[in-house]
């Protein structure tokens, strides 16, 4: 705000507008060009309309889907399992990760397992889970936990590991017990890292959710979309892809907004 006093003179104002005009115009322009191409290319025959339907038709289909109860039943089924799985991953992952950060033997014990588990394509495990536990909710929830547990544990570990030892000494010196200092010192100090791990976890668990639903069909939004693909409903496929892309983006956006709003002192760290 240091330039505020001279910003009011007409010449300055003009040059500032000129400088910020691209900042306003370019983002809108590029998105408009992209959507325009999506609209025009199938109409003009540059791509086959049966493989890429024009933007306007996809939007009409989106609107129609949003009015279908079947869509909402499937979405609710997925959302419920996702919420339970993600909550379980937090309940297990955050305590495990932070304890690994503060207690070396536990780290040495668990870390090699994470290294081995990291490259396993988790979504594919759904087929094994179905063999073990059947195609019910148990398999579908465990797969979400499996999908996002490792990033949550690793980020919690890094958060807890990087704590200034003095913070803990002070707490202990002031008579705070082990459990008390875990809640009052370790957890708050590790919070920025934990929260960025959760952000990663959201993205990965949505991937796992959709990918596992596509392999094992049932009530679920991923199954709904892939059944449309099997039935050759191209328009529904594109409409569902648009809706799911927006949901994925919105979850990330809302998560970041919530963190900034309720934990403003962490800005920039997450």
């Amino acid at each position, binding site marked *: 705000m240091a330039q505020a006093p001279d910003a009011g003179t007409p010449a300055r104002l003009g040059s500032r507008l000129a400088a910020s005009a691209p900042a306003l115009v*370019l983002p809108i322009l590029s*998105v408009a060009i992209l959507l325009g191409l999506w609209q025009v290319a199938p109409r003009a025959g540059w791509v086959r309309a049966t493989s890429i339907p024009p933007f306007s038709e996809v939007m009409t289909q989106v609107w129609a889907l949003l009015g279908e109860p079947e869509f909402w039943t499937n979405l609710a089924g997925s959302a419920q399992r996702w919420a339970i799985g993600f909550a379980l991953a937090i309940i297990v992952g955050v305590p495990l990760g932070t304890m690994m950060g503060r207690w070396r033997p536990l780290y040495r014990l668990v870390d090699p397992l994470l290294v081995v588990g990291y490259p396993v394509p988790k979504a594919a495990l759904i087929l094994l889970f179905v063999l073990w536990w059947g195609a019910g909710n148990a398999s579908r929830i465990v797969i979400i936990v499996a999908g996002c547990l490792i990033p949550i544990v690793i980020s919690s570990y890094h958060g807890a590991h990087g704590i200034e030892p003095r913070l803990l000494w002070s707490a202990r010196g002031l008579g705070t017990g082990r459990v008390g200092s875990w809640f009052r010192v370790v957890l708050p100090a590790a919070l920025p890292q934990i929260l960025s791990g959760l952000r990663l976890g959201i993205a990965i668990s949505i991937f796992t959710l959709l990918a596992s639903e596509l392999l094992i069909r049932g009530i679920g939004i991923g199954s709904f979309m892939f059944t449309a693909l099997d039935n050759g409903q191209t328009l529904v496929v594109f409409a569902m892809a648009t809706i799911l892309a927006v949901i994925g983006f919105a979850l990330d956006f809302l998560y970041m907004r919530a963190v900034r709003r309720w934990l403003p002192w962490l800005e920039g760290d997450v």
Partner: protein
Amino acid sequence: MRTLAWIALRVYPFALLLLAWSLLSKYGILGNQFVMPSPGRVWETFKALVHDGTLGAETATTLQRVLIAYAMAIVAGIVIGTLIGRLRYVRLALRPIASFLFPTPKVALYPAMFIIFGLGSASKIAFGFSEALFPILLAAAAGTSQIEPRLLWSAAALGTPARAALVKVVIPAALPAILTGARIGLVGAIIGVYMGEMIAGGDGLGHVMADAYRTLHTADMYASIITISLIGFALDRVFLLARGWLLAWSAEEEAQAA
């Protein structure tokens, strides 16, 4: 003593997994021998699959797709990311699109990509590419936008043209950041290709998995998922070696090695 401990730590996770697996299988905790075959039986299956040439051929197919997808993602990610990081107009134009697509689950676009690219290799490479691209692109954009201006001034003072400085100064200086994104992208490429092969089969390790599930050759399922995980593990190790070699000059790498 230190090397012994080092080896023990590397061997222990595999030993523990094998032990847990044997016990689960022996006592039928997750199901009978059919649902949860013993490690020994999976090993026999594994040898049989290697012997009749299936595993080698399918692994080669998958590996080839992964490497093509990953190479394309690295080139596109570094080029677009560097343009976003260094040029204000490109950044303004592409940022809304990149920041929308980054957190979006790419799997939501798989069916649309099947329709566009068909059911062959192209769509599977497209999946791997889409999973790998964004971590690399964002890391390149962030890395190249935070270069010390002094490095560029020195290069300019020594007569390096701006374009040459992009290749000689900007990308090397951003390399540590780019490689961090590239390591995440590698696993993305593997998972994207494998999932694609599972969904619309024909060939590849993912097809072995999905096909074994349909035909109830359960031991083959374990062989497939273990093979793809080992590939992921091995490629990640190779990546770390390459990174050490590429970044031998940087302080960060020296600190890690020490």
